[in-house]
């Protein structure tokens, strides 16, 4: 009988009782920036578990608020990243490839990574059958390969909608890492039925949606929280390599009243030595090559 109270995805491997991680070139911290490049539909179909828009359709204010990212915000966000040489790991609603290939090309030219964030951010996996969820994984892999030449390595479920079998399906399809788990500041193995999967720290707290909208941070305060998060994880990275993720949404961070403090926070990070400015895929592969087996063993020992 399955235990519904526990996701049973990872073992309890406490922060100070686990194998030490060292990042390439002795870096203390791996920093990755994950822009969510999204498309929200004007007239999406209903889902039994979640309403796509708060107001009755058409919710022109909410729709246009999101659309801002693809018209105006993305360029400012990209400029701030370019200025300090940070590549993005794009959490991509893959239908963006069809809707706005112009944006996808700009990202691809910069060597940014693409991973899947579902088809649209207005199509949730709630209520899907296993076969239907497999369909969106296959669609994601094929769409990103067709438009960018990349094989996707990562996954963030559309609007963070998950089912209990989602992680198994990802591993079965060859996806290497998930961003849906927030339990750690280091990558960790995820228990799946077949194959391998790891979680990479993605962070709710650093996510601009959470910062600006949920926690209602003024833009300059968000810049400060990014710097403090970095400073702390940088210091702790002396003991064992940490991961810091900054998940972004061009429709939020890309506004003129918000971009400057954010750009300054990136400068703060890039101004340090021993920082590995990486992509999600690079972090995952380094972890798989050097720490996956040790971490799995350590986790099994804790259980026994």
């Amino acid at each position: 009988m399955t235990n519904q109270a526990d996701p049973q995805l990872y073992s309890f491997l406490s922060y100070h009782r686990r194998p030490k991680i060292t990042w390439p070139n002795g870096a203390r911290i791996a920093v990755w920036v994950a822009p969510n490049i999204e498309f929200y539909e004007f007239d999406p179909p209903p889902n039994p578990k979640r309403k796509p828009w708060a107001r009755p359709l058409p919710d022109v204010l909410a729709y246009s608020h999101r659309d801002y990212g693809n018209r105006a915000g993305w360029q400012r966000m990209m400029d701030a990243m370019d200025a300090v040489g940070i590549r993005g790991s794009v959490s991509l609603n893959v239908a963006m490839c069809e809707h706005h290939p112009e944006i996808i090309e700009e990202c691809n030219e910069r060597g940014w990574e693409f991973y899947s964030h579902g088809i649209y951010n207005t199509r949730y996996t709630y209520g899907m059958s296993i076969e239907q969820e497999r369909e969106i994984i296959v669609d994601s892999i094929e769409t990103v390969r067709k438009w960018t030449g990349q094989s996707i390595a990562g996954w963030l479920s559309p609007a963070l909608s998950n089912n209990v079998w989602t992680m198994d399906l990802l591993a079965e399809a060859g996806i290497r890492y998930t961003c849906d788990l927030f339990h750690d500041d280091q990558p960790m193995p995820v228990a799946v039925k077949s194959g391998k999967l790891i979680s990479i720290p993605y962070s709710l707290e650093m996510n601009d949606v959470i910062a600006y909208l949920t926690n209602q941070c003024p833009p300059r305060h968000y810049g400060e929280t990014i710097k403090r998060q970095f400073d702390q994880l940088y210091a702790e990275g002396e003991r064992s390599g940490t991961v810091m993720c900054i998940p972004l949404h061009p429709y939020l961070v890309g506004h003129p009243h918000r971009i400057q403090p954010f750009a300054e926070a990136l400068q703060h990070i890039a101004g340090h030595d021993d920082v590995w400015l990486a992509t999600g895929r690079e972090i995952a592969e380094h972890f798989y090559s050097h720490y996956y087996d040790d971490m799995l063993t350590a986790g099994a020992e804790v259980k026994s």
Partner: protein
Amino acid sequence: MSLPPEYMQYPMRRHGMDHDRYPWSSLTDRPRIEWPGGARVALWVTPILQWFPLNMTATPFLAPGGLTMPYPDYRHYTNRDYGNRVGIFRILDLLDRYKLAASTFVNAAIAERYPSLLRDLVGRKIEIVGHGLDMGHLHHSGLSEVQEAELVKRSCDVLASAAGQSIKGWLSPGRSQSWHTLDILAAHGIEYCCDWANDDMPYEMHTSGKDVLSMPLVHESDDRMILQEFRHTEEDWLAQTKDRFDVLYREAERYGGRIMSLPLHAWIMGVPYRATYLREALEYIAGHDKVWVATGQHIAAEFRRQTTR
């Protein structure tokens, strides 16, 4: 368990938008706009006058700022109405002091109820922009096209008659629209609409009649959002307003003229302790050389003159 087959189909998955109101374009790829006098930023001061009926309903949702207490909610009714009696005059004093043009968004009910207020605005050569009938009458798809057209017609007629000027601009109460709002606005002579929050510059929206220009009225950095929804301080409002201006002013050099809207709900920004912050914001912006202070109508006309062939 599974979802119906339609949930796995994407009929609008295609190049560009998933509707036909406007084509996609990226802000930085467009032809440069040159504002009069070589200005980098067009400052568009936009006071907002609203009336929340005591018996308003949440149809189909409660308008932002709407009354929330059991009838009679004097508390919120009067707090909102304060803006129309007192708050707006504090804002107008500042506009006078810095000799600033402005476009005021006005619920038509204000013109019916407080005709002298309209005379005070018009006497200052302030543009009157349609803002629906009142905050209890949202535009939404539960209305028939006939009902919605009647709302638009009545709003425009009342305002035009009280202001002695034709109404060219529009902001729906709560920035809420039905599927047909833009078509109805176009049919009633509206030239620009401020409901959509997806750009920093104007762009044309297609309707069943003439195109309507979408004008960039900020949403998340307006006074109500910052002070009431996000509960930031006045210092934070001021910092965000200055930061916004600085970025637009800087970008304008590279990309061409930009627009800085400044929404000022009279019931929010018109309270005494906020006046000094508004004064500081206006002083800061007006302290820059390359700023063109204009009404929405003038900004829209200048934009169209340069973009329409």
